[in-house]
Protein backbone atom coordinates (compact mmCIF):
# COMPACT_ATOMS: atom_id res chain seq x y z
CA UNK A 1 0.00 0.00 0.00
CA UNK A 2 2.83 2.35 0.93
CA UNK A 3 6.31 2.00 -0.55
CA UNK A 4 9.03 4.33 0.63
CA UNK A 5 12.33 4.14 -1.20
CA UNK A 6 15.66 5.72 -0.30
CA UNK A 7 14.13 8.69 1.45
CA UNK A 8 16.69 11.29 2.58
CA UNK A 9 16.51 14.65 4.26
CA UNK A 10 19.24 16.89 5.67
CA UNK A 11 18.89 19.92 7.87
CA UNK A 12 22.07 21.89 7.33
CA UNK A 13 24.84 19.36 7.94
CA UNK A 14 22.62 16.96 9.87
CA UNK A 15 21.30 13.96 7.97
CA UNK A 16 17.97 13.58 9.75
CA UNK A 17 16.86 10.77 7.42
CA UNK A 18 19.38 8.89 5.34
CA UNK A 19 18.34 6.53 2.57
CA UNK A 20 15.40 5.05 4.48
CA UNK A 21 13.05 2.56 2.81
CA UNK A 22 9.98 0.83 4.15
CA UNK A 23 6.82 -0.99 3.04
CA UNK A 24 3.39 -1.07 4.57
CA UNK A 25 1.08 -3.83 3.29
CA UNK A 26 -2.65 -3.15 3.09
CA UNK A 27 -4.46 -4.08 6.31
CA UNK A 28 -1.28 -4.28 8.33
CA UNK A 29 -0.03 -2.54 11.43
CA UNK A 30 3.61 -1.63 10.97
CA UNK A 31 5.74 -0.05 13.66
CA UNK A 32 8.47 2.53 13.21
CA UNK A 33 10.83 2.51 16.16
CA UNK A 34 14.01 4.27 17.09
CA UNK A 35 15.62 6.32 19.85
CA UNK A 36 14.96 10.03 20.29
CA UNK A 37 16.08 12.14 17.36
CA UNK A 38 16.38 9.11 15.07
CA UNK A 39 14.39 10.83 12.31
CA UNK A 40 11.01 9.10 12.70
CA UNK A 41 8.89 12.24 12.71
CA UNK A 42 10.90 13.65 9.82
CA UNK A 43 10.05 10.48 7.85
CA UNK A 44 6.36 11.11 8.51
CA UNK A 45 6.52 14.73 7.47
CA UNK A 46 8.05 13.70 4.14
CA UNK A 47 5.67 10.80 3.52
CA UNK A 48 2.64 12.99 4.28
CA UNK A 49 3.85 15.85 2.09
CA UNK A 50 4.72 18.39 4.77
CA UNK A 51 8.36 18.62 3.70
CA UNK A 52 9.95 17.70 0.41
CA UNK A 53 12.62 14.99 0.62
CA UNK A 54 16.07 15.72 -0.77
CA UNK A 55 16.03 12.31 -2.35
CA UNK A 56 13.82 9.23 -2.61
CA UNK A 57 10.27 8.38 -3.55
CA UNK A 58 6.99 7.72 -1.81
CA UNK A 59 4.39 5.58 -3.56
CA UNK A 60 0.90 5.24 -2.17
CA UNK A 61 -1.58 2.75 -3.69
CA UNK A 62 0.69 2.42 -6.68
CA UNK A 63 0.89 6.15 -7.35
CA UNK A 64 3.95 8.35 -6.91
CA UNK A 65 3.01 10.95 -4.31
CA UNK A 66 6.50 12.32 -3.64
CA UNK A 67 6.34 16.07 -3.14
CA UNK A 68 2.55 16.37 -3.37
CA UNK A 69 1.03 18.81 -0.87
CA UNK A 70 -0.53 17.27 2.28
CA UNK A 71 -4.11 18.02 1.29
CA UNK A 72 -3.75 16.09 -1.95
CA UNK A 73 -2.22 13.14 -0.15
CA UNK A 74 -5.00 13.24 2.44
CA UNK A 75 -7.64 13.27 -0.32
CA UNK A 76 -6.04 10.12 -1.68
CA UNK A 77 -6.48 8.43 1.68
CA UNK A 78 -3.27 8.81 3.67
CA UNK A 79 -3.10 10.98 6.77
CA UNK A 80 -0.63 11.70 9.54
CA UNK A 81 -1.25 12.68 13.16
CA UNK A 82 1.04 14.89 15.18
CA UNK A 83 3.38 13.84 17.96
CA UNK A 84 2.66 17.18 19.60
CA UNK A 85 -1.12 17.14 19.45
CA UNK A 86 -2.65 19.95 17.45
CA UNK A 87 -6.31 20.39 18.41
CA UNK A 88 -8.41 23.29 17.12
CA UNK A 89 -8.52 24.67 20.65
CA UNK A 90 -11.44 27.05 20.21
CA UNK A 91 -13.77 24.41 18.75
CA UNK A 92 -15.68 21.65 20.48
CA UNK A 93 -14.56 18.05 20.20
CA UNK A 94 -17.33 17.28 17.74
CA UNK A 95 -16.48 20.32 15.60
CA UNK A 96 -12.84 19.25 15.62
CA UNK A 97 -13.75 15.84 14.27
CA UNK A 98 -16.19 17.40 11.80
CA UNK A 99 -13.32 19.35 10.20
CA UNK A 100 -11.93 15.98 9.19
CA UNK A 101 -15.34 14.69 8.12
CA UNK A 102 -15.92 17.70 5.84
CA UNK A 103 -13.33 16.27 3.45
CA UNK A 104 -15.87 13.88 1.95
CA UNK A 105 -19.13 15.18 3.48
CA UNK A 106 -19.76 18.70 2.28
CA UNK A 107 -23.00 19.20 4.18
CA UNK A 108 -22.75 20.44 7.77
CA UNK A 109 -25.42 18.19 9.22
CA UNK A 110 -23.83 15.18 7.58
CA UNK A 111 -20.29 16.07 8.69
CA UNK A 112 -21.47 16.65 12.25
CA UNK A 113 -23.31 13.31 12.25
CA UNK A 114 -20.21 11.49 11.04
CA UNK A 115 -18.18 13.30 13.69
CA UNK A 116 -20.63 12.25 16.42
CA UNK A 117 -20.54 8.66 15.30
CA UNK A 118 -16.73 8.49 15.17
CA UNK A 119 -16.42 10.32 18.47
CA UNK A 120 -18.69 7.76 20.10
CA UNK A 121 -16.81 4.89 18.56
CA UNK A 122 -13.58 6.18 20.09
CA UNK A 123 -15.21 6.49 23.49
CA UNK A 124 -15.51 10.28 23.37
CA UNK A 125 -19.30 10.39 23.44
CA UNK A 126 -19.46 12.29 26.70
CA UNK A 127 -16.94 14.90 25.56
CA UNK A 128 -18.40 15.82 22.19
CA UNK A 129 -19.72 19.21 23.24
CA UNK A 130 -16.74 20.20 25.35
CA UNK A 131 -14.12 22.59 23.99
CA UNK A 132 -11.08 20.71 22.74
CA UNK A 133 -8.90 22.87 24.97
CA UNK A 134 -10.47 21.22 28.04
CA UNK A 135 -9.32 17.71 27.11
CA UNK A 136 -6.63 15.83 29.02
CA UNK A 137 -3.59 14.57 27.13
CA UNK A 138 -5.23 11.18 26.64
CA UNK A 139 -8.32 12.89 25.27
CA UNK A 140 -6.27 14.98 22.87
CA UNK A 141 -4.41 11.97 21.53
CA UNK A 142 -7.71 10.26 20.94
CA UNK A 143 -9.01 13.37 19.21
CA UNK A 144 -6.05 13.29 16.81
CA UNK A 145 -7.01 9.75 15.92
CA UNK A 146 -10.72 10.58 15.61
CA UNK A 147 -10.11 13.54 13.32
CA UNK A 148 -7.82 11.49 11.11
CA UNK A 149 -10.38 8.69 10.86
CA UNK A 150 -13.12 11.18 10.01
CA UNK A 151 -11.35 12.09 6.77
CA UNK A 152 -12.04 8.56 5.60
CA UNK A 153 -8.32 7.90 5.19
CA UNK A 154 -7.33 4.28 4.65
CA UNK A 155 -3.73 4.58 5.81
CA UNK A 156 -3.06 6.33 9.11
CA UNK A 157 0.41 7.44 10.14
CA UNK A 158 0.28 7.72 13.93
CA UNK A 159 3.08 9.62 15.62
CA UNK A 160 3.32 8.45 19.24
CA UNK A 161 -0.40 8.39 20.00
CA UNK A 162 0.36 6.55 23.22
CA UNK A 163 3.16 8.69 24.59
CA UNK A 164 2.26 10.12 27.98
CA UNK A 165 -0.65 7.77 28.61
CA UNK A 166 -1.03 5.58 31.68
CA UNK A 167 -1.11 1.79 31.07
CA UNK A 168 -4.90 1.48 31.30
CA UNK A 169 -5.29 4.22 28.68
CA UNK A 170 -2.70 2.50 26.51
CA UNK A 171 -4.59 -0.77 26.50
CA UNK A 172 -7.80 1.09 25.63
CA UNK A 173 -6.15 2.73 22.62
CA UNK A 174 -4.57 -0.57 21.60
CA UNK A 175 -8.04 -2.12 21.56
CA UNK A 176 -9.44 0.76 19.54
CA UNK A 177 -6.64 0.61 16.97
CA UNK A 178 -7.06 -3.12 16.56
CA UNK A 179 -10.79 -2.67 16.05
CA UNK A 180 -10.24 0.09 13.45
CA UNK A 181 -7.76 -2.12 11.63
CA UNK A 182 -10.30 -4.93 11.51
CA UNK A 183 -12.69 -2.48 9.87
CA UNK A 184 -10.23 -2.18 6.99
CA UNK A 185 -7.69 0.47 7.90
CA UNK A 186 -3.92 0.25 7.73
CA UNK A 187 -1.46 1.74 10.21
CA UNK A 188 2.10 2.89 10.25
CA UNK A 189 2.88 3.90 13.80
CA UNK A 190 5.79 5.53 15.54
CA UNK A 191 5.78 4.29 19.09
CA UNK A 192 8.02 4.28 22.13
CA UNK A 193 5.64 2.31 24.30
CA UNK A 194 6.98 -1.21 23.79
CA UNK A 195 3.92 -2.90 25.26
CA UNK A 196 1.85 -1.33 22.48
CA UNK A 197 4.28 -2.17 19.70
CA UNK A 198 4.63 -5.77 20.84
CA UNK A 199 0.90 -6.34 20.99
CA UNK A 200 -0.11 -4.43 17.85
CA UNK A 201 2.55 -4.41 15.18
CA UNK A 202 3.08 -7.41 12.93
CA UNK A 203 6.36 -6.01 11.70
CA UNK A 204 8.45 -3.03 12.62
CA UNK A 205 11.32 -0.96 11.28
CA UNK A 206 14.04 0.54 13.43
CA UNK A 207 15.58 3.86 12.55
CA UNK A 208 18.80 5.13 14.10
CA UNK A 209 20.66 8.30 13.14
CA UNK A 210 18.42 8.53 10.09
CA UNK A 211 19.30 5.03 8.82
CA UNK A 212 17.02 2.01 8.74
CA UNK A 213 19.01 -0.50 10.81
CA UNK A 214 16.57 -3.36 11.19
CA UNK A 215 13.28 -4.79 10.05
CA UNK A 216 11.38 -7.75 11.47
CA UNK A 217 8.73 -8.86 13.90
CA UNK A 218 8.85 -6.99 17.21
CA UNK A 219 10.02 -10.21 18.91
CA UNK A 220 12.94 -10.54 16.51
CA UNK A 221 13.85 -6.91 16.92
CA UNK A 222 14.20 -6.92 20.70
CA UNK A 223 16.73 -9.69 20.31
CA UNK A 224 18.63 -7.96 17.51
CA UNK A 225 22.00 -6.78 18.92
CA UNK A 226 22.10 -3.75 16.59
CA UNK A 227 18.72 -2.56 17.85
CA UNK A 228 19.62 -3.08 21.49
CA UNK A 229 22.82 -1.08 20.95
CA UNK A 230 20.93 1.74 19.31
CA UNK A 231 18.68 2.05 22.33
CA UNK A 232 21.06 1.25 25.18
CA UNK A 233 24.42 2.35 23.83
CA UNK A 234 27.57 0.74 22.48
CA UNK A 235 28.44 -2.64 23.99
CA UNK A 236 25.07 -3.03 25.67
CA UNK A 237 24.11 -6.12 23.70
CA UNK A 238 27.25 -7.94 24.69
CA UNK A 239 26.81 -7.00 28.35
CA UNK A 240 23.21 -8.20 28.27
CA UNK A 241 24.34 -11.50 26.77
CA UNK A 242 26.92 -11.98 29.50
CA UNK A 243 24.30 -11.14 32.11
CA UNK A 244 22.11 -13.92 30.75
CA UNK A 245 24.84 -16.50 30.87
CA UNK A 246 26.21 -15.57 34.30
Amino acid at each position, binding site marked *: MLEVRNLSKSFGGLKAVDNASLDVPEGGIVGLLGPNGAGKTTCFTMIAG*FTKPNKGTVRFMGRDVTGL*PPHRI*CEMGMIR*TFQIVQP*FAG*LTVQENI*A*VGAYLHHHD*RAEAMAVARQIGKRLGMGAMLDRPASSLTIAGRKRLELARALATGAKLLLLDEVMAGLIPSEVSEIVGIIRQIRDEGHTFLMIEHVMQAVMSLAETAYVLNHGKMIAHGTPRELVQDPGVVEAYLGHGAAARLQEGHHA
Partner: protein
Amino acid sequence: MKPQSMGQAVLIALALIYLASLYFMSSPVWMGFTINALIVAVVALAWNITGGFGGMASFGHAAMYGTGAYASAILQVQYGINAWIAFGAGIVAGAAMGAFIGALAFRYGLKGSYFALVTLAFAEVLRICASSFAITGGGSGLQLRLEPGLSTLQFNDRAVVYTILLVIVALVMALTAWLKYSRFGAYLIAVRENEDAARALGIDTYRIKVKAMAISGAFAGLAGVLYLQVWLFIDSAVVYGSAVSIEALIGPIIGGAGTVWGPLIGTLGLHLLGEGAKHLLHNAPGLNFVLYAVVLICALRFLPQGLMGLAARIGTFRKKENDNA
Protein backbone atom coordinates in the same frame (compact mmCIF):
# COMPACT_ATOMS: atom_id res chain seq x y z
CA MET B 1 -27.28 34.09 14.13
CA LYS B 2 -29.47 33.40 17.16
CA PRO B 3 -28.30 34.85 20.46
CA GLN B 4 -27.13 32.26 22.94
CA SER B 5 -27.48 34.15 26.16
CA MET B 6 -29.58 36.81 27.83
CA GLY B 7 -26.66 39.21 27.54
CA GLN B 8 -26.33 38.75 23.78
CA ALA B 9 -30.08 39.05 23.31
CA VAL B 10 -30.05 42.35 25.18
CA LEU B 11 -27.09 43.63 23.17
CA ILE B 12 -28.73 42.73 19.88
CA ALA B 13 -32.06 44.16 21.01
CA LEU B 14 -30.38 47.45 21.95
CA ALA B 15 -28.80 47.71 18.51
CA LEU B 16 -32.11 46.94 16.80
CA ILE B 17 -34.01 49.43 18.98
CA TYR B 18 -31.50 52.13 18.13
CA LEU B 19 -31.68 51.35 14.42
CA ALA B 20 -35.50 51.32 14.46
CA SER B 21 -35.74 54.50 16.51
CA LEU B 22 -34.23 56.51 13.67
CA TYR B 23 -37.46 56.13 11.74
CA PHE B 24 -39.27 58.04 14.50
CA MET B 25 -36.64 60.59 15.44
CA SER B 26 -36.70 62.45 12.11
CA SER B 27 -33.29 63.90 12.83
CA PRO B 28 -31.25 64.34 9.63
CA VAL B 29 -28.07 64.61 11.68
CA TRP B 30 -28.53 61.25 13.38
CA MET B 31 -29.72 59.71 10.16
CA GLY B 32 -26.60 60.88 8.31
CA PHE B 33 -24.43 59.73 11.17
CA THR B 34 -25.99 56.27 11.24
CA ILE B 35 -25.86 55.92 7.47
CA ASN B 36 -22.11 56.43 7.75
CA ALA B 37 -21.90 53.92 10.56
CA LEU B 38 -23.78 51.33 8.49
CA ILE B 39 -21.39 51.75 5.57
CA VAL B 40 -18.50 51.25 7.98
CA ALA B 41 -20.33 48.22 9.41
CA VAL B 42 -20.21 46.62 5.96
CA VAL B 43 -16.39 47.01 5.81
CA ALA B 44 -16.27 45.74 9.38
CA LEU B 45 -18.23 42.67 8.30
CA ALA B 46 -15.77 42.30 5.43
CA TRP B 47 -12.81 42.42 7.80
CA ASN B 48 -14.59 39.91 10.05
CA ILE B 49 -14.44 37.21 7.35
CA THR B 50 -10.66 37.22 7.12
CA GLY B 51 -9.72 38.73 10.48
CA GLY B 52 -12.46 37.18 12.59
CA PHE B 53 -13.01 33.71 11.14
CA GLY B 54 -9.68 33.27 9.39
CA GLY B 55 -7.44 34.93 11.99
CA MET B 56 -5.71 36.96 9.27
CA ALA B 57 -5.80 40.47 10.64
CA SER B 58 -5.58 42.90 7.76
CA PHE B 59 -4.52 46.48 8.28
CA GLY B 60 -5.44 47.52 4.79
CA HIS B 61 -9.06 46.80 4.00
CA ALA B 62 -9.10 50.26 2.43
CA ALA B 63 -7.36 48.61 -0.54
CA MET B 64 -10.50 46.66 -1.41
CA TYR B 65 -12.93 49.34 -0.23
CA GLY B 66 -11.26 51.99 -2.36
CA THR B 67 -10.94 49.70 -5.36
CA GLY B 68 -14.67 49.01 -5.25
CA ALA B 69 -15.48 52.70 -4.98
CA TYR B 70 -13.05 53.75 -7.71
CA ALA B 71 -14.04 50.96 -10.10
CA SER B 72 -17.66 52.01 -9.86
CA ALA B 73 -16.88 55.73 -10.05
CA ILE B 74 -14.55 55.38 -13.05
CA LEU B 75 -17.11 53.34 -14.98
CA GLN B 76 -19.86 55.86 -14.29
CA VAL B 77 -17.90 59.11 -14.63
CA GLN B 78 -15.35 58.27 -17.33
CA TYR B 79 -17.32 55.77 -19.39
CA GLY B 80 -20.92 56.70 -18.67
CA ILE B 81 -21.81 53.16 -17.66
CA ASN B 82 -25.08 52.45 -15.89
CA ALA B 83 -24.92 52.70 -12.08
CA TRP B 84 -26.27 49.19 -11.52
CA ILE B 85 -23.60 47.63 -13.70
CA ALA B 86 -20.97 49.82 -12.06
CA PHE B 87 -22.31 48.70 -8.68
CA GLY B 88 -21.72 45.06 -9.58
CA ALA B 89 -18.36 45.87 -11.12
CA GLY B 90 -17.28 47.59 -7.89
CA ILE B 91 -18.01 44.44 -5.91
CA VAL B 92 -16.16 42.29 -8.41
CA ALA B 93 -13.20 44.69 -8.40
CA GLY B 94 -13.05 44.56 -4.59
CA ALA B 95 -13.11 40.76 -4.70
CA ALA B 96 -10.38 40.69 -7.35
CA MET B 97 -8.18 43.06 -5.35
CA GLY B 98 -8.71 40.94 -2.22
CA ALA B 99 -7.84 37.75 -4.07
CA PHE B 100 -4.79 39.39 -5.62
CA ILE B 101 -3.41 40.65 -2.31
CA GLY B 102 -4.19 37.32 -0.67
CA ALA B 103 -2.63 35.28 -3.46
CA LEU B 104 0.59 37.29 -3.22
CA ALA B 105 0.80 37.46 0.56
CA PHE B 106 -0.06 33.81 1.16
CA ARG B 107 2.15 32.59 -1.66
CA TYR B 108 5.01 33.86 0.46
CA GLY B 109 3.50 32.45 3.63
CA LEU B 110 2.95 35.83 5.27
CA LYS B 111 1.17 35.73 8.61
CA GLY B 112 0.41 37.91 11.60
CA SER B 113 1.99 41.33 11.56
CA TYR B 114 3.74 40.68 8.21
CA PHE B 115 0.39 40.11 6.59
CA ALA B 116 -1.01 43.21 8.29
CA LEU B 117 1.92 45.31 7.02
CA VAL B 118 1.62 44.05 3.46
CA THR B 119 -2.08 44.86 3.32
CA LEU B 120 -1.33 48.31 4.71
CA ALA B 121 1.36 48.81 2.08
CA PHE B 122 -1.06 47.82 -0.69
CA ALA B 123 -3.64 50.34 0.50
CA GLU B 124 -1.03 53.08 0.67
CA VAL B 125 0.37 52.35 -2.79
CA LEU B 126 -3.15 52.36 -4.21
CA ARG B 127 -3.88 55.65 -2.45
CA ILE B 128 -0.84 57.27 -4.03
CA CYS B 129 -1.68 55.82 -7.45
CA ALA B 130 -5.27 57.03 -7.21
CA SER B 131 -4.11 60.54 -6.44
CA SER B 132 -1.74 60.66 -9.41
CA PHE B 133 -3.59 59.29 -12.42
CA ALA B 134 -6.03 61.13 -14.64
CA ILE B 135 -8.50 58.26 -14.86
CA THR B 136 -9.02 58.35 -11.08
CA GLY B 137 -9.44 62.12 -11.13
CA GLY B 138 -6.01 62.68 -9.59
CA GLY B 139 -5.89 64.80 -6.47
CA SER B 140 -9.37 66.18 -6.93
CA GLY B 141 -11.13 62.81 -6.93
CA LEU B 142 -14.26 61.80 -8.81
CA GLN B 143 -17.72 63.25 -8.50
CA LEU B 144 -20.89 61.53 -9.70
CA ARG B 145 -23.37 63.76 -11.51
CA LEU B 146 -26.32 64.42 -9.21
CA GLU B 147 -29.17 62.61 -10.90
CA PRO B 148 -31.54 61.02 -8.40
CA GLY B 149 -33.41 57.99 -9.60
CA LEU B 150 -33.63 54.24 -9.46
CA SER B 151 -31.51 53.80 -12.60
CA THR B 152 -28.68 55.92 -11.15
CA LEU B 153 -28.98 54.42 -7.66
CA GLN B 154 -29.15 57.87 -6.11
CA PHE B 155 -31.88 58.72 -3.64
CA ASN B 156 -32.80 62.11 -2.21
CA ASP B 157 -34.83 60.72 0.64
CA ARG B 158 -32.46 59.84 3.48
CA ALA B 159 -34.97 57.38 4.91
CA VAL B 160 -34.86 55.42 1.66
CA VAL B 161 -31.05 55.38 1.68
CA TYR B 162 -31.12 54.29 5.29
CA THR B 163 -33.58 51.48 4.60
CA ILE B 164 -31.54 50.21 1.67
CA LEU B 165 -28.43 50.17 3.84
CA LEU B 166 -30.24 48.30 6.60
CA VAL B 167 -31.33 45.67 4.09
CA ILE B 168 -27.80 45.36 2.72
CA VAL B 169 -26.26 45.04 6.18
CA ALA B 170 -28.84 42.37 7.03
CA LEU B 171 -27.99 40.51 3.82
CA VAL B 172 -24.27 40.64 4.48
CA MET B 173 -24.87 39.37 8.01
CA ALA B 174 -27.08 36.56 6.72
CA LEU B 175 -24.34 35.61 4.27
CA THR B 176 -21.81 35.71 7.09
CA ALA B 177 -23.97 33.39 9.20
CA TRP B 178 -24.40 31.04 6.27
CA LEU B 179 -20.64 31.01 5.60
CA LYS B 180 -19.89 30.41 9.25
CA TYR B 181 -21.93 27.24 9.31
CA SER B 182 -20.76 25.98 5.92
CA ARG B 183 -17.86 23.73 5.06
CA PHE B 184 -15.90 26.77 3.96
CA GLY B 185 -16.51 28.46 7.32
CA ALA B 186 -15.41 25.40 9.25
CA TYR B 187 -12.25 25.20 7.14
CA LEU B 188 -11.54 28.90 7.61
CA ILE B 189 -11.89 28.58 11.38
CA ALA B 190 -9.70 25.47 11.31
CA VAL B 191 -7.01 27.44 9.48
CA ARG B 192 -7.23 30.13 12.17
CA GLU B 193 -7.01 27.65 15.02
CA ASN B 194 -4.17 25.51 13.68
CA GLU B 195 -2.91 25.67 10.14
CA ASP B 196 -0.75 22.54 10.27
CA ALA B 197 -3.58 20.41 11.59
CA ALA B 198 -5.83 21.87 8.91
CA ARG B 199 -3.37 20.90 6.19
CA ALA B 200 -3.09 17.38 7.54
CA LEU B 201 -6.87 17.02 7.42
CA GLY B 202 -6.97 17.61 3.70
CA ILE B 203 -7.55 21.35 3.64
CA ASP B 204 -5.92 23.34 0.87
CA THR B 205 -5.16 26.18 3.25
CA TYR B 206 -3.78 28.48 0.56
CA ARG B 207 -6.98 28.23 -1.45
CA ILE B 208 -9.19 28.74 1.59
CA LYS B 209 -7.28 31.85 2.59
CA VAL B 210 -7.34 33.38 -0.88
CA LYS B 211 -11.03 32.59 -1.17
CA ALA B 212 -11.65 34.30 2.17
CA MET B 213 -9.79 37.37 0.93
CA ALA B 214 -11.92 37.39 -2.22
CA ILE B 215 -15.19 37.20 -0.27
CA SER B 216 -13.96 39.79 2.19
CA GLY B 217 -12.85 41.95 -0.74
CA ALA B 218 -16.29 41.66 -2.30
CA PHE B 219 -17.93 42.91 0.92
CA ALA B 220 -15.37 45.70 1.28
CA GLY B 221 -15.84 46.66 -2.38
CA LEU B 222 -19.59 46.72 -1.75
CA ALA B 223 -19.05 49.11 1.16
CA GLY B 224 -16.92 51.36 -1.06
CA VAL B 225 -19.60 51.44 -3.73
CA LEU B 226 -22.23 52.25 -1.07
CA TYR B 227 -20.12 55.17 0.10
CA LEU B 228 -19.88 56.44 -3.46
CA GLN B 229 -23.60 56.12 -4.12
CA VAL B 230 -24.52 57.85 -0.86
CA TRP B 231 -22.06 60.77 -0.97
CA LEU B 232 -21.50 60.92 -4.76
CA PHE B 233 -17.88 61.91 -4.28
CA ILE B 234 -14.66 60.04 -3.57
CA ASP B 235 -11.00 60.91 -3.49
CA SER B 236 -7.94 58.88 -2.66
CA ALA B 237 -7.66 59.98 0.98
CA VAL B 238 -11.30 59.23 1.70
CA VAL B 239 -11.54 55.72 0.25
CA TYR B 240 -7.94 54.49 0.35
CA GLY B 241 -7.01 56.29 3.58
CA SER B 242 -5.93 54.31 6.61
CA ALA B 243 -8.94 55.60 8.55
CA VAL B 244 -11.06 53.09 6.58
CA SER B 245 -8.67 50.24 7.41
CA ILE B 246 -8.66 51.14 11.10
CA GLU B 247 -12.44 51.40 11.31
CA ALA B 248 -12.75 48.08 9.50
CA LEU B 249 -10.84 46.21 12.18
CA ILE B 250 -11.76 48.10 15.31
CA GLY B 251 -15.51 47.47 15.13
CA PRO B 252 -15.25 43.67 14.92
CA ILE B 253 -12.60 43.55 17.64
CA ILE B 254 -14.73 45.63 20.01
CA GLY B 255 -17.95 43.88 19.07
CA GLY B 256 -16.57 40.35 18.83
CA ALA B 257 -14.43 39.04 15.96
CA GLY B 258 -15.72 35.88 14.33
CA THR B 259 -19.31 36.51 15.39
CA VAL B 260 -22.17 37.53 13.11
CA TRP B 261 -23.43 40.48 15.18
CA GLY B 262 -20.12 41.69 16.59
CA PRO B 263 -19.00 43.89 13.69
CA LEU B 264 -22.33 45.77 13.54
CA ILE B 265 -22.62 46.19 17.30
CA GLY B 266 -18.98 47.19 17.69
CA THR B 267 -19.17 49.71 14.86
CA LEU B 268 -22.41 51.28 16.12
CA GLY B 269 -21.09 51.43 19.68
CA LEU B 270 -17.83 53.02 18.63
CA HIS B 271 -19.43 55.56 16.38
CA LEU B 272 -21.88 56.55 19.09
CA LEU B 273 -19.04 56.88 21.54
CA GLY B 274 -16.97 58.94 19.10
CA GLU B 275 -19.93 61.16 18.29
CA GLY B 276 -20.73 61.68 21.95
CA ALA B 277 -17.14 62.63 22.74
CA LYS B 278 -17.12 65.03 19.83
CA HIS B 279 -20.12 66.89 21.20
CA LEU B 280 -18.83 66.93 24.73
CA LEU B 281 -15.37 68.14 23.78
CA HIS B 282 -16.38 70.56 21.03
CA ASN B 283 -15.13 68.86 17.91
CA ALA B 284 -11.45 68.50 18.69
CA PRO B 285 -10.17 67.06 15.38
CA GLY B 286 -8.88 63.49 15.40
CA LEU B 287 -10.27 63.02 18.88
CA ASN B 288 -12.42 60.06 17.88
CA PHE B 289 -9.31 58.14 16.81
CA VAL B 290 -7.61 58.77 20.13
CA LEU B 291 -10.74 57.49 21.80
CA TYR B 292 -10.88 54.48 19.47
CA ALA B 293 -7.29 53.63 20.36
CA VAL B 294 -8.08 53.70 24.06
CA VAL B 295 -11.19 51.56 23.60
CA LEU B 296 -9.27 49.14 21.37
CA ILE B 297 -6.52 48.69 23.92
CA CYS B 298 -9.06 48.11 26.68
CA ALA B 299 -10.96 45.63 24.51
CA LEU B 300 -7.83 43.68 23.62
CA ARG B 301 -6.83 43.61 27.27
CA PHE B 302 -10.14 42.91 28.95
CA LEU B 303 -12.54 41.62 26.29
CA PRO B 304 -10.74 39.00 24.21
CA GLN B 305 -14.00 38.07 22.51
CA GLY B 306 -15.41 41.58 22.37
CA LEU B 307 -18.83 42.68 23.56
CA MET B 308 -20.52 39.57 22.17
CA GLY B 309 -18.09 37.42 24.13
CA LEU B 310 -18.74 39.40 27.30
CA ALA B 311 -22.48 39.27 26.77
CA ALA B 312 -22.31 35.54 26.11
CA ARG B 313 -21.25 35.02 29.69
CA ILE B 314 -24.32 36.82 31.04
CA GLY B 315 -27.34 34.56 31.47
CA THR B 316 -26.46 31.67 29.20
CA PHE B 317 -29.42 29.97 27.49
CA ARG B 318 -27.69 26.74 26.66
CA LYS B 319 -24.22 25.71 27.62
CA LYS B 320 -23.72 23.20 24.96
CA GLU B 321 -22.52 25.03 21.87
CA ASN B 322 -19.29 26.86 22.11
CA ASP B 323 -19.68 29.20 19.17
CA ASN B 324 -21.23 32.62 19.47
CA ALA B 325 -24.19 33.95 17.57
